[in-house]
């Protein structure tokens, strides 16, 4: 795990330094010219003139004592820039995940139980289309729809005042992102239910005269939840990908939107710390899923 994180830190650091154009060039953009002497001065101020390994050493040394450096763009501490944005994205992700589980899981079960019926086909087509719609297109259509029919636009403007406002504000973007994950969860629930239902112990239960409902919901679902847990875990980390687009379109000041901006502005301290944060969350979630798997896996339990 630690090795993975170190690897990521090196790769990200080097990739960023390979990017064409640097912050000094971008700063001059707003002044409309580039002055080589002034540019060299800026690079020196920001420590960009040092060899890459030395820059890397400074970064890691800072990380260890929770000093993330200063944003090149705002000249504010990176901690202050990132800190307030993290909860926003976390809330949005949680809401989206909740949405996708709420829809994906039951629909997946229904599909499996009603396998190969019209309902199954319809739901599968809908879920597949969910995986096919580009999220930015969906978001754009939602915005259009809201303005045209409600005369209002559900974008972020000021920090919401209470929990209800917050929920209201985030629900539409969360649904736009969650739509996709719910399709994924539904498909996985369906296929793992089907697989479980073919297995011996289900047949045994059936032969013992257990009711269909009991079989479907008690035995099959319980066991099918296992792989679904994994995918939910992975989705939670991967939601950040979907949020990049959604936060951008809905103008939500979370970390995902910030990442794109920071990449475009070559704000290295922001990008490298943010990417590390994303990697850390992903790695931790994977770890948690592994743990959960061990707890939930019936075979392990039976072996005890």
């Amino acid at each position, binding site marked *: 795990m630690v090795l993975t994180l170190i690897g990521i830190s090196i790769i990200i650091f080097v990739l960023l330094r390979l990017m064409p154009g640097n912050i000094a*060039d971008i700063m001059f953009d707003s002044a409309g010219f580039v002055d080589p002497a*002034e540019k060299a001065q800026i690079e020196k101020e920001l420590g960009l003139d040092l060899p890459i390994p030395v820059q890397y050493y400074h970064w890691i040394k800072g990380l260890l004592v929770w000093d993330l450096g200063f944003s090149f763009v705002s000249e504010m501490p990176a901690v202050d820039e990132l800190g307030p944005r993290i909860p926003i994205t976390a809330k949005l992700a949680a809401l989206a995940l909740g949405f996708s589980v709420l829809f994906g899981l039951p629909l997946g079960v229904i599909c499996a139980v009603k396998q190969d019926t019209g309902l199954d086909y319809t739901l599968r087509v809908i879920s597949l289309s969910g995986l096919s719609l580009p999220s930015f297109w969906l978001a754009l259509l939602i915005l259009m729809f809201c303005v045209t029919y409600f005369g209002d636009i559900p974008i972020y403007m000021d920090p919401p005042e209470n929990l209800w406002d917050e929920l209201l504000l985030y629900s539409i973007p969360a649904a736009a992102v969650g739509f996709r994950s719910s399709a994924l969860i539904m498909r996985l629930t369906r296929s793992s239910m089907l697989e479980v239902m073919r297995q011996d112990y289900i047949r045994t239960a059936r032969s013992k005269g257990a009711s269909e409902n009991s079989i479907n919901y008690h035995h099959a679902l319980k066991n099918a939840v296992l792989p679904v847990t994994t995918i939910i875990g992975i989705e939670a980390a991967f939601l950040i990908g979907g949020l990049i687009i959604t936060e951008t379109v809905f103008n939500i000041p979370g970390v995902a939107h910030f990442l794109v901006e920071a990449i475009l502005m070559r704000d290295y301290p922001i990008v490298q710390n943010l990417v590390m944060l994303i990697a850390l969350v992903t790695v931790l979630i994977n770890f948690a899923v592994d743990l959960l798997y061990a707890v939930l896996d019936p075979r392990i339990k039976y072996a005890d």
Partner: protein
Amino acid sequence: MQRKLFTIASAVSMVGLMLSAEAAMAQKNGGVLKAYHRGTPPSGSIHEEATNSTVAPYMGVFNNLIMYDQAKAVESLDTIVPDLATKWSWNGDKTKLTFNLRKGVTFHDGKPFTAKDVVCTWNLVKGVGKAKLRKNPRKSWYKNLDKVTADNDYQATFHLKRKQPAFVALLAGGYSPVYPCHVSPKKMRTHPIGTGPFKFVSLKQNEHVKFVKNQNYWKKGLPHLDGINWTIIKSRSTRVLAFVAGKFDFTFNVDVTIPLLKDVKAQAPHAICELVTTNVSFNLIVNQFKPPFDNAKIRKAMVMTMDRKAFIDILSEGQNVQGGAMMPPPSGVWGMPPEFLKTVAGYSSDVAGNRAKARKIMESLGYGPDNKLKVKVSTRNIAVYRDPAVILIDHMKEIYIDATLDTVETSNWHAKVARKDYMVGLNLTGIGVDDPDANFYENYSCGSQRNYTGYCKPEMEALFEKQSMMEDQAARKKLVWEIDKKLQEDAARPMIMHGKAAQCWQPYVKGFVTHVNSIYNNWRMEDVWLDK
């Protein structure tokens, strides 16, 4: 021509008078103006930036020595009014400009304003003195400024190397605020301190820039607003939709493009929108040091194949205007009038004829349908740059030039231009002050940092200086036209068009006047109030 200008100016000033009369009668105090901003301002330090992203929100933090009357739409030497200076006067040979300064003015941090601050500010811009700006985009404006001295606490003198009557024009724009001596340039970028009507509160990237009323503002009773919140929304479609939905009182500085204006008018018919010439021109930067455009004939052919009217029709539904380096009339004070413009090579309306001639030139150089000249058109990867570049490429096809578009990320654009690593680039140039001194010295003079093409001709330098020293403004204008014509025919920076765009606000926003010949100088916002 003079008369026409005069009527426009007087009509506009009458509107201004009516506005101020209305304001005097019924202005209300209080309320926070909700505006949107198109992107995070690069910094809060106006002297370090050359973009309205910084000037528009931050101008209210500061005062100038003198400024363009905020209530008058046409900016000229005649509309300059006192600000921190109560009066100004020239010496006999017009090389010394003395300002008498207002007493009892304090900066937002409580420290008093004195002549020392004036000296510090222009030392900063000249690049002398201890404190240094990180970037200094308008150094070229002050080529002729020798030094600034503090005669006493409340009197400062600008010493010029030679006579320059229009020097005051440079000081009157939004780009010339007075900085405090005691605040470092770095602090000015992150938390600017000024004497102006609004105090900076906070900037959060991609979120907002906030300003609050300066309770101790030296102009009694101003500003009317309690504050201004600029919400940052990068997507133009989203922010204009939000304005249409009534979420904002005020759009960003001329943010509404012409196709969008139609939509805003249809969806929000009550909103007030004013279409102005932005003093931002679309032009080509041609690399004369490298093939193929080191060949003057190919340069000429390229300029001739451009159908300026097509650019204008496509990109602005016919609203943008043709012109030279200076903003064309009626909005612009110094631009070549249409009948004069027609005499400039490549500006005749016979596009087919021009192209036939251009093809002849290309054929004489051995190019033809089977031997096309391959060219790269570089531009920034931003729609407003990209769109005209795509049209240019299409027009080049007409004369056996097979061009591809080379889109350059914003992060690389100026570096690439500075390296001269391009053949032809599509560029946008914003002019802060509608005065030839600002434009010529910034964009066409030898050694200026923003003279991207490196155009440098001694005889043109002499002409720049000659017009700059002229006192008779009518005679100066004639000379400026001649200079402009030469610049176009040299293909120094061939002009495609001058842009127009609209500023919109809700009807309850009062006291804001758009200026017709610059978008950079009318953002003090102290007279704006909300009728709610």
